[in-house]
């Protein structure tokens, strides 16, 4: 592209901004980002505990009234202002720059522990061949594998079983990111996403043929209509959609900024959102069919063995299922392989938010920025998590940064954009200019009124719960520093970063990349 004559006659000062080759690559990358560990190990349990089959109603309502509208908001900011999260928000209005840095700071924290879970899943893929956990998966996971210390603090007693795969995960993810938007991120998603789908489909079919599978599905899909009158169930549906779609995270702002000028944003967004939900339904079927089999072999009710999802489901319940099931090794490779691929494409997108921001701020090339960002990030992750104390740190950081950090950031973002900066008409207008499905007053009501109400309700309920009940059995100082402290620290870091001026080399000094107006588009 740099060989093309510049429209204004002058040669470009630096290489042009990277771009997706087609919208298909963008859609695949956006689905790869949205489909993550939460789809596999969170959704089935949220649905099961909140009305079973009846949950589909609040779930779809949440998808259409908050998930998709907020996704379009992210697309609008990134696509209109063509920058990383801080730069795109800065171009929207300089006062909003801090929102972008807040999202970058959240991605920084999440990436350093998210990589660790992918490393565990990678190891468990290998363990599946020999069923290394024997007849005590819980004891194996916490004892032999993670060597979890009884002391809750920060230690540097490394566990080679986790350290080595973690170094490999970081090396691979940084190589992908250094290769660039199209050749790295795009290509990785073109390969891994279809692979994930095929592996997971085989897993679902295999699970469905296990004895007891029907009981598992019965437990998941039997509707409890009374649940629909419970506000907690509706909050759970909005929470699930919100976390699952990766909105208000900087990811969709960043990915949308690499799109061509004339791209159908709403048309693409609907495909991404429904593909993500389609995968969640598939995961629900696969996971609960397997849990039904676990109940069958234990001679128990599904409810008694279901557990609570998350890390317990993946690294304790599933190994139990693998040990009992016919062709268990295959089931293990498919399940843990799916976790690795789903997690890897999401991790790529989380780190890209940081790389893109630093690249814009310092005005440096892709490869150099990847190492400047990636090496410290990898070192922090490798130093803190593959240790005997890493699990507790991961647990607390995830519970606070993921729950409060993202939720608070989303709430503040919609409130500021709607009421302080009053940018929704501008952003909605931009999306409508380039898209097949137009955004009007309805979208502005959903983003500006309904979303803050729902986000505020979930955030305040969680806040009250955490203050009243504390967090697990963790010491107060540990939760205070790495839970609450981290949430507050991210906001302070964001404010400080937004005060640092943009140098003459930074992308902020590129010509103002305003949206093409209607005349331009129709030329």
């Amino acid at each position: 592209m740099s060989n093309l004559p510049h429209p204004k006659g002058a040669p470009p000062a630096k290489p042009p901004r990277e771009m997706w080759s087609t919208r298909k690559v963008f859609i695949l990358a956006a689905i790869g980002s949205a489909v993550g560990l939460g789809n596999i190990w969170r959704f089935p349990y949220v649905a099961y505990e909140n009305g079973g089959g009846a949950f589909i109603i609040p779930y779809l309502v949440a998808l259409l009234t908050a998930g998709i509208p907020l996704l379009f908001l992210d697309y609008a900011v990134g696509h209109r202002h063509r920058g990383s999260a801080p730069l795109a928000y800065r171009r929207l209005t300089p006062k909003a720059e801090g929102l972008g840095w807040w999202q970058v700071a959240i991605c920084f924290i999440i990436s350093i522990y998210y990589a660790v879970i992918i490393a565990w899943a990678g190891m468990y893929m290998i363990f599946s061949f020999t069923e290394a956990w024997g007849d005590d998966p819980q004891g194996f996971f916490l004892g032999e594998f993670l060597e979890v210390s009884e002391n809750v603090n920060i230690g540097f007693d490394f566990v080679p079983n986790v350290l080595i795969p973690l170094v490999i995960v970081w090396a691979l993810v940084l190589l992908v990111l250094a290769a660039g938007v199209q050749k790295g991120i795009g290509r990785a998603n073109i390969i891994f996403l279809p692979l994930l789908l095929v592996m997971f489909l085989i897993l679902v079919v295999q699970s469905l043929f296990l004895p007891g599978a029907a009981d598992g599905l019965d437990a998941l899909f039997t509707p409890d209509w009374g649940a629909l009158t419970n506000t907690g169930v509706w909050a759970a549906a909005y929470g699930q959609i919100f976390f699952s779609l990766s909105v208000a995270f900087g990811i969709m702002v960043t990915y949308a900024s690499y799109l061509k000028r004339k791209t159908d944003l709403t048309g693409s967004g609907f495909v991404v959102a429904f593909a993500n939900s389609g995968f969640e339904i598939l995961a629900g079927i696969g996971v609960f069919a397997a849990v039904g089999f676990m109940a069958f072999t234990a001679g128990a009710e599904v409810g008694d063995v279901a557990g609570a999802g998350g890390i317990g489901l993946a690294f304790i319940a599933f190994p139990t299922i693998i040990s009992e099931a016919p062709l268990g090794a295959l089931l293990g490779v498919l399940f843990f392989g799916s976790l690795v691929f789903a997690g890897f494409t999401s991790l790529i997108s989380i780190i890209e938010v940081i790389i893109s921001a630093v690249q814009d701020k310092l005005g440096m090339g892709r490869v150099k920025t990847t190492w400047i960002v990636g090496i410290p990030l990898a070192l922090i992750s490798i130093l803190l998590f593959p240790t005997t104390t890493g699990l507790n740190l991961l647990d607390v950081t995830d519970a606070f940064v993921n729950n409060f950090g993202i939720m608070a950031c989303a709430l503040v973002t919609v409130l500021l954009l709607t009421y302080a900066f009053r940018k929704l008409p501008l952003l909605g207008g931009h999306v409508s200019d380039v898209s097949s499905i137009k955004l009007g007053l309805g979208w502005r009501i959903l983003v500006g009124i309904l979303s803050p109400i729902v986000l505020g309700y979930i955030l305040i309920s969680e806040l009250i719960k955490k203050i009243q009940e504390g967090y697990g059995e963790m010491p107060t100082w540990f939760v205070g520093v790495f839970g609450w402290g981290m949430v507050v620290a991210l906001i302070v870091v964001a404010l400080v970063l937004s005060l640092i001026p943009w140098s003459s080399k930074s992308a902020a000094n590129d010509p103002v990349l305003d949206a093409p107006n209607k005349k331009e588009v129709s030329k």
Partner: protein
Amino acid sequence: MSTAAIVMLIISILTVWGGLGLALVNLQRHPEDDTRMPEEHAPEL
């Protein structure tokens, strides 16, 4: 499986995957406009 569970399983699949199907049809009806390459509209390139 109970009838209610089977019905809800089918409804869940039809609504979500049906939604994906409709979204894909909508996208196909609005193909990418290759005549509008980015350099035409992005002065910085």
